[in-house]
């Protein structure tokens, strides 16, 4: 441990830390520009300069890269330190007059204007070199470097051209303290950590916010380490040392008695309906995007804002986008009416916007749903019955200017209306997962015409499938809301448990059997069985069926040329009787 004095306070800190870190522990703020905890200190900006007093006199040191020593006495804001800091900032202001952090720092230190010559009033770069070091030391790409010296010094790529070495990781922009570096996707080269519409994406993330287990993963496509072999900043940060860059994907084989399919749905892509302008017009968003926006953990902190950062004054919610529409999906997606009502309610709660709901008809089928609809009516949400034909930004009148105009036939009054709003929320429908057909093939189950997995019976076996031991839960079977999903999932779990609890497997009662007395061992059936349930016993000269393997299709029965094979419950005799029965007058 080291004993020292900072700003007159005697403290004890651990060995090996810097003065800046020691001060930070005491909540004494020393301004810095080029310091970043993830980077080796370099003392380029020299803003962090402090006075170190020893027995004989004092000296100025940069606090970011000077280690604490026993008996040290530090003054972070002494006249001498402040004088030096002001001088340094004044010089930085001359170098980068447009850099906001420098301006702010200057203001804080009482500098109104720099006395030195300003070379470029738009310059933001303070030439601290953080970007260069980030690119070289952390990323390992070395795509940028300093060029020239003295007053001609600048940060640049080789020959000022786009560097092949650049991987588009944007680490330089991330570390730049003054915002001098911005990232732009110039030549269609992929920027790895591009910003999503609603928030930044990182190479380490949790797949979804409700993920169980809530464990982040590294997206190898986006991770710098998997491109250059360097970086690994995450390992430095993670105190639990939980990050393993060597981990490999594993395929795990499990033997199970039953399987519950809960592969979910795909949200309808509204860009397929060009008239609604999704992807073309700002502030036309999908239900899922709105859900994200309104969430407390969203980039806006749960505030409902337009793309320009303002609060909307009017919002239109369009129902049945991609549902109940012969051009897209004929079926009703079941959840949209209710979530649209929820959105309307949230909008009322969080904003003072006028809210318009455009519906075909309100489907408030569940417990408490109709009551909720009535509540919304009382809250003043305007419900307009009609299918929206178009959302555009072509203003025809003054009040439409700068707005999104929803064109709709109000079928209750029989008039085509144009309603200007600030934001349009598309209540997108639910579609089967893109790979539902492949999944169905793997599990030997069927899909219904709309592409959702087909249950064994719509009323009597709504969670079972045509394959024994395969059960369905949730929207992979049909669009449904959370209560229905939970109920079905519970039922599926019970079905699976019922099988597990019994611990044994009921054989299909409808299997085939071969009469030993009649079988001549012709073996025609043997090769036909898709389940290899039939074997030829050479010694006995007959073919035999393994009851455990036989699934009871009866192919062997209709192929048995001597009639020795019969299918239980579907014997030739029985089917002949059925045929005869049809023609009894």
């Amino acid at each position, binding site marked *: 441990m080291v004993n020292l004095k900072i700003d007159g306070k005697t403290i004890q800190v651990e060995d090996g830390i810097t003065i800046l870190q020691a001060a930070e522990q005491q909540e004494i703020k020393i301004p810095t520009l080029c310091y970043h905890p993830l980077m080796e200190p370099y003392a380029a900006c020299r803003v962090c300069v402090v006075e170190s007093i020893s027995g004989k006199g004092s000296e100025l040191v940069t606090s970011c890269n000077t280690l604490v020593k026993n008996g040290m006495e530090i003054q972070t804001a002494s006249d001498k330190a402040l004088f030096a800091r002001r001088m340094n900032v004044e010089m930085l202001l001359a170098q980068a007059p447009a850099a906001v952090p420098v301006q702010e720092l200057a203001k804080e230190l009482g500098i109104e204007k720099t006395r030195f010559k300003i070379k470029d009033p738009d310059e933001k770069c303070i030439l601290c070199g953080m970007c260069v070091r980030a690119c070289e030391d952390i990323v390992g790409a070395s795509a940028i470097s300093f060029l020239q010296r003295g007053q001609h010094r600048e940060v640049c790529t080789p020959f000022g051209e786009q560097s092949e070495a650049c991987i588009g990781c944007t680490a330089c922009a991330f570390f730049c303290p003054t915002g001098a570096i911005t990232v732009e996707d110039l030549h269609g080269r992929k920027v790895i950590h591009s910003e999503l519409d609603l928030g930044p994406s990182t190479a380490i993330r949790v797949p979804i916010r409700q993920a169980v287990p809530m464990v982040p993963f590294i997206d190898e496509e986006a991770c710098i380490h998997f491109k250059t072999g360097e970086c690994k900043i995450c390992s430095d940060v993670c105190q639990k040392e939980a990050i393993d860059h060597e981990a490999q994907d594993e395929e795990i084989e499990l033997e199970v008695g039953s399987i519950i399919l809960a592969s979910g749905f795909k949200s309808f892509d509204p860009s397929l309906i060009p008239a609604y302008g999704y992807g073309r017009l700002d502030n036309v968003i999908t239900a899922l995007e709105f859900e994200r926006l309104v969430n407390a953990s969203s980039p806006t902190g749960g505030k409902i804002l337009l793309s320009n950062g303002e609060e909307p004054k009017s919002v239109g919610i369009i129902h049945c986008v991609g549902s109940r529409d012969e051009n897209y999906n004929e079926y009703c997606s079941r959840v949209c009416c209710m979530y649209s009502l929820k959105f309307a309610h949230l909008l009322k709660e969080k904003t003072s916007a006028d809210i318009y709901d455009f519906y075909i008809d309100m489907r408030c089928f569940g417990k408490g749903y109709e009551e909720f609809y009535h509540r919304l009516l009382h809250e003043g949400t305007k419900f307009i019955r009609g299918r929206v034909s178009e959302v555009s930004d072509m203003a025809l009148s003054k009040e439409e200017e700068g707005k999104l105009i929803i064109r709709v036939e109000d079928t209750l009054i029989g008039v085509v209306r144009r309603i200007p709003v600030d934001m349009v929320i598309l209540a997108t429908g639910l579609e089967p997962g893109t790979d539902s057909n492949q999944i169905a093939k793997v599990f030997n189950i069927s899909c219904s015409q709309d592409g959702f997995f087909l249950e064994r019976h719509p009323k009597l076996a709504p969670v079972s499938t045509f394959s024994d031991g395969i059960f369905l839960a949730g929207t992979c079977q049909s669009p449904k809301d959370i209560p229905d999903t939970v109920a079905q999932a519970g039922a599926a779990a019970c079905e699976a448990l019922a099988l597990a609890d019994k611990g044994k497997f009921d054989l299909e009662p409808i299997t085939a059997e071969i009469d030993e007395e009649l079988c001549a061992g012709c073996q025609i059936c043997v090769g036909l069985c898709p389940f290899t349930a039939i074997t030829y016993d050479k010694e006995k000269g007959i073919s035999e069926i393994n009851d455990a393997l036989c699934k009871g299709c009866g192919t062997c029965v*209709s192929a*048995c040329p001597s009639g020795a094979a019969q299918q239980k419950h579907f014997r030739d005799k029985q089917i002949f009787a059925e045929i005869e029965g049809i023609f009894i007058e």
Partner: protein
Amino acid sequence: MSTEKPKVAFYWCASCGGCEEAVIDLAEDILKVTAAVDIVFWPVAMDFKKTDVEAMEDGSIAVSFINGAVRNSEQEEMVNLLRRKSGLVVAFGSCSHLGGIPGLANFWNRKTIFNSSYHTSPSTDNPEGTIPQEKHIMEDGKELTLPRFYDTVYTLDQVIDVDYYLPGCAPPKHLIMTAITAILEGKLPSKGAVLSPNKSLCDDCGRNDSKPEKLAIKAVKRPWEVEMDNEKCFLAQGIICMGPATRSGCEERCILGNMPCRGCFGPTDQVYDQGAKFLGAFASLLDSDDEEEIEKIVNTIVDPAGTFYRFSLPSSILRRKRMETVK
């Protein structure tokens, strides 16, 4: 002539005469038969008249062996007469059992058969277009009659009640002797039984073990199209062999002669329709899941109905080709 010896009758209907030969082929065994029974009616070998039979007391003939299918009015009349006079009637041979080769005429009818036989066949020389008449008045006023030729060929049991069936074209010697012995000794199975094992021919067939693990047929060959392996299962060679759908008991006469089974013994008891049953089995072996390819293989089967129903058409479910004339 001892009165204690049981009386036996033999009669032939629409048949080739092979069944009569089969009786003769019993060779010295025939002596045992004649020693044990009294043959009271056997048109092919001995001179009896219909009136002799009519004169007999009803039921006085112990057993009548009737071969051949029934295809005209005379045959129908005779088998009815014999039925009346006999205690037991045995359908002797494939034709009376199943319809046999004459039964293939059920793909035609009287008109088309007469047309072919008396007009269009290449060897016919019939400029006046004469066809057989059932009745003709001679110049001297006498009336000549011929039996009526039916549209359809029948099995014996479609005309009269039959007690037992001796299958085969013709029935083999050992089955005939077993049947006669059983009748003489009174050790008879239940009525309607086919006097041959109720298992298909593969059970006896020496080639059965040469079958591959999975029979699959890419193209169907007719016997003259290929040089046949004389040890390998015919189906494995792509040759239609009715053995799997045919009752055993023939001692593999055809197989030993390197010819596939044609099905003269008829189906086993569990099978309703030999041809359809065999078709179900055979078609499943066609080695393709592709519609066009299946069609191609099917086209290599030249005459499925004639092949699968070679001996059993009149006894099959459909019995004959659909009649053009509608009742």
